């Protein structure tokens, strides 16, 4: 039984060698890709100076920090933290709302089926794409320099960062509408405004709301850290506590962030499930 199997395999290998090994150039390419990948990885590890000694030392210190964090305790700043948390939520809420209001017309302008001019919507799309590459924290830093410290800078940073993404998402949603209601409105004598209001808008509104809620969630997460550069909210308290080595309070704030994010996620998931 075993002998016939081996014989069979040997015969197969003779007649159809390609089953058992890939052609040489394919193997070379795979090995080359892996080698390149490993070389870049090794170079990166060398660049960031990841020696085992350093890792061991750092882990020791990290363990020490964790023992310092236990138990998490708010100290006497509990009400300050709660207020800062509300500030964070307010920043995320207003930022998302402003971004939605600004991005709504931009989304319509960026959609192929609303504005047929190729050059125009290509330019607008590239504009959105370009500014998407800038992290929200960098916007926050810029707005703190422009309008001063405080949550107002955070609101503007979130709004500007989101407008770019919303503009793109809204434009895509509008391009994917079903054309039949649009034709219907036009056939019963509606002009362009009517087409947009009665044919397109009811179709895209739930999609837009779902995007907006999703971004509200993610903005709550990012608003928690904007304070690190001075844009208000809980991040300011957290970075202060870390700076003065008050690890118990820092741990408490991190836990507060985790709980708040979980609550917001749960609420927004329920609303989104109802919308769609």
């Amino acid at each position, binding site marked *: 039984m075993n002998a016939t199997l081996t014989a069979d395999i040997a015969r197969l290998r003779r007649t159809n060698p390609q089953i058992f090994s890939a052609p040489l150039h394919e193997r070379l390419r795979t090995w080359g890709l892996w080698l390149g990948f490993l070389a870049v990885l090794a170079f990166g590890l060398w660049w960031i100076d990841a020696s085992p000694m350093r890792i061991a030392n750092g882990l020791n210190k990290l363990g020490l920090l964790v023992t310092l964090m236990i138990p998490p305790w708010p100290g006497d700043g509990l009400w300050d933290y709660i207020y800062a948390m*509300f500030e964070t939520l307010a920043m995320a809420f207003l930022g998302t709302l402003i971004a939605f209001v600004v991005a709504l017309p931009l989304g319509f302008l960026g959609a192929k089926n609303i504005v047929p001019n190729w050059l125009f919507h290509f330019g607008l799309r590239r504009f959105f794409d370009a500014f998407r590459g800038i992290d929200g924290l960098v916007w926050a830093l*810029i707005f703190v320099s422009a309008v001063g410290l405080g949550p107002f800078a955070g609101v503007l940073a979130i709004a500007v960062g989101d407008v770019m993404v919303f503009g793109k998402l809204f434009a895509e949603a509008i391009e994917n509408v079903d054309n039949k209601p649009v034709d219907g409105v036009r056939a019963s004598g509606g002009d362009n405004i009517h087409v947009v209001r009665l044919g397109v808008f009811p179709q895209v509104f739930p999609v837009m709301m779902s995007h907006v809620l999703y971004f509200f969630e993610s903005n709550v997460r990012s608003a928690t850290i904007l304070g690190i550069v001075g844009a208000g909210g809980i991040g300011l308290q957290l970075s202060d506590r870390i700076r003065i080595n008050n690890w118990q309070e820092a741990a408490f704030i991190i836990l507060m962030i985790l709980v708040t994010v979980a609550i917001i996620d749960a609420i927004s998931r329920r609303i989104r499930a109802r919308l769609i």
Partner: protein
Amino acid sequence: MSTLSPTNGRLTSTTREERMLSFDERYRQQQFTRRNWTLLYGALFLAALIGSVAVSDFSIPGLIKGLPMAWNYIAGTMPRLTFENFWADMTDWYWGLRFWLRLLVETILMGFVGTVLGGVIALALSFPASRNLVENTGIYFAARRTLEFFRTVPELVFALIFVFAFGLGPFAGVLAIAVHTAGALGKLFAEVNENVDPRPIEGVRASGGNWPMIMRLGVVPQALPNYASYLLLRFEINVRGASALGLVGAGGIGQDLYVAIRQFEYTDISAIMLLLILTTSVIDISCEAIRHRLIGHTLTQVA
């Protein structure tokens, strides 16, 4: 039809008028409850709006005053480029190009190494976090919660803590990226694992494979293209994130951007931002091309 015959009191009406009347009444009731819900949501929204405005010292006059200031600031960062003296102006604008390019390479490397390390951790944790691959609910629960913790604590908070533990520099940044990436990718990988075809798994088990063999031979080959695609997507996100980590001293071009913004070196700000935009665009476009080659166009983007 007989199953539909009404037995509750409201539908026993027989004449046309009565039926119309009861229909009307129900319609009005529905409309009433609907309107109430809309009102309730509207009121909640308004309360949230007013509360937010009060807490965040947001005001329309402030906005009207602040927006031109922000605009002036952005306009102020624009370099003076003249047509006749274009190259000299450009070299003037990009006086620190060699230095910035070095930092830019560092940023990309941080994103790359962080993504790879995070991806390895995510892969290891994704198998115990898939409901169809582990019997033990305790392990499943622990793996899921670990991933959730990694994912929910903001990258920058990890960076702040790691800078403290491992010292200033890109090493702390890479670790922060790796931990956050492990959480985000681990969840996505686990979802991929949960959607694999169970037949190869049964096949490996039937021929006597143990648990690691089942994972290696039954699950990974099916899920590999999706893993790679998510990994590339995450790489794009991480390069963007790495550019911000410098603000807390965790290496990368953010460090220099921070200095430029804090010291009001206006044209430097726009020069670095432009470099960043170009880099992220190139990475986005090339990653998207690779992703489409890997798994076609069907995967929707998951942030």
